[in-house]
């Protein structure tokens, strides 16, 4: 069974890197380039895990996480969310965890760590 992972990220280079890495492990990647699109995708598609950039062009990742956690789609209250950000501002990690993310990862994304973090929530197909 293929697991769906949603990556909300506006940087195409990061998107490509993560897509290549996760598809190599048999996961299926759903992509959203904006925060609101990401929330909509999570609410309409079957998603097993969300990778979430913080610096997005519309609403930021904290807002995305809060909207997901309070969504009417009750599965989103407990879906694993991994925040991935360049942590350019003070307290990004703390804010991400407070907003409802389960794990915080900083860029550059170490692919071996990404695999380990994802597999901790969603076993490799």
């Amino acid at each position, binding site marked *: 069974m293929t697991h769906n992972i949603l990556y909300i990220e506006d940087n195409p280079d990061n998107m490509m890197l993560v897509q290549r890495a996760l598809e190599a492990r048999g996961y299926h990647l759903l992509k959203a380039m904006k925060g609101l699109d990401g929330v909509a995708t999570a609410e309409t598609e079957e998603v097993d895990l969300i990778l979430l950039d913080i610096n997005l062009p519309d609403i930021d990742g904290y807002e995305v996480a809060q909207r997901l956690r309070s969504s009417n789609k009750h599965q989103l209250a407990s879906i694993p969310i991994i925040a991935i950000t360049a*942590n*350019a501002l003070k307290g990004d990690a703390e804010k991400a965890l407070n907003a409802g993310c389960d*794990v915080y990862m900083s860029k550059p994304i170490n692919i071996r760590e990404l695999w380990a973090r994802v597999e901790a929530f969603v076993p490799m197909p």
Partner: protein
Amino acid sequence: MLNSKSKDNLGASAASNTVISSKLSHLSHLKCSGCGKEYAHHELHTFCSFCQSPLLSIYDLKSIRQNVDRDEISRRPKGMWRWNELLPVLDAKNQVFLGEGDTPLLPLPRLKKGLGLSNLYVKDESSNPTGSFKARGLAAAVSKAKELGVEKVIIPTAGNAGGAMAAYAARAGLRAHIFMPKDTPFANIEESRMAGAEVVLVDGLISDAAGMAGEKARAEGWFDVSTFKEPYRVEGKKVMGYELAESFNWELPDVIIYPTGGGTGLVGMWKAFAELEELGWLENTKRPRMVSVQADGCAPVVKAFQAKASFCDFWTNAQTIASGLRVPKSFADHLILQDIYESNGTAIAVSDKSILESQKQLAVLEGIFAAPEGAATLAALKELLQQGWLHPDERIVLFNTGSGLKYLDHPN
């Protein structure tokens, strides 16, 4: 004092009838520590473009073994660059030298007696240029950057790395830009500015500074010499391992207790021991147990070690008086953990209170005014003795990574 240059310290020649190499460096290529992908060393690289893990320098050790006399290295003029075959700079004119390396390995007789130990030493890195071990890594990184045509370098720092980079960049004629937390010790800020670096004080930790430095590097083309985000700082740091082996007559101590922020020194020394073993320069194959010391207000490696994890979680709300240990997550966390596991070592967190008590003890009993990070290793030693993790007869080396004189603005 154990003098690492003393001829009496030298064991039997590993290859007394060998021809002395005329090749400065035997660097072969770079290799990703994660996926193994190889990179050419004559190009400028940061970290692996495929899996984004640190790159490590690989040397033609077979060639060194055939052509380099271990004991001839011991007879060369003092300094880090006497190990040039095992360092990455290809042309001597690019070696930026301020006197780094060959720091003393000092016995600690009073502390040893008080703690009931037989063999206790400190490798005192405070005599390096700019007063800390950071000089070694930045000497190597700035030299190699210069060799590869870099003109401007940028770094996020918890303190001492910034001062060291500013000095070596000045010596090399490179422009330097430094991002450091606003509560970084004043000495680090001032020494960086004095050497002509552009300094930005950040309202946050080194992780926040790293984000800003990375943004500026990408936007304006500065070369980022962040810990493990370029391959060569670890090469300078590994020389601490060579010097230890040389000082102990080409054997290694039983236990090394080392303060861990970014982890370059720990990873570097473990790499050095592997290289020495492959070169056949060690008298036996016994490796030390590596102890990673962190502060209990910022202990991501300790937490991961206790969980038997391969990576660290980002440590939130990091706080400690040991600014060099305020690293919420190292870019090379998997290498640090891998080396601790491989060495049958451990990771331990100590309190700021015990760091300050140990700093005082080192000064009063041994005359060493250690940096808080260095004092943390004594605090850890006492804790490990209480736990029974150490045997009193073992040969134990603490690392004092810098001078306490650089932290005088901290309220003790």
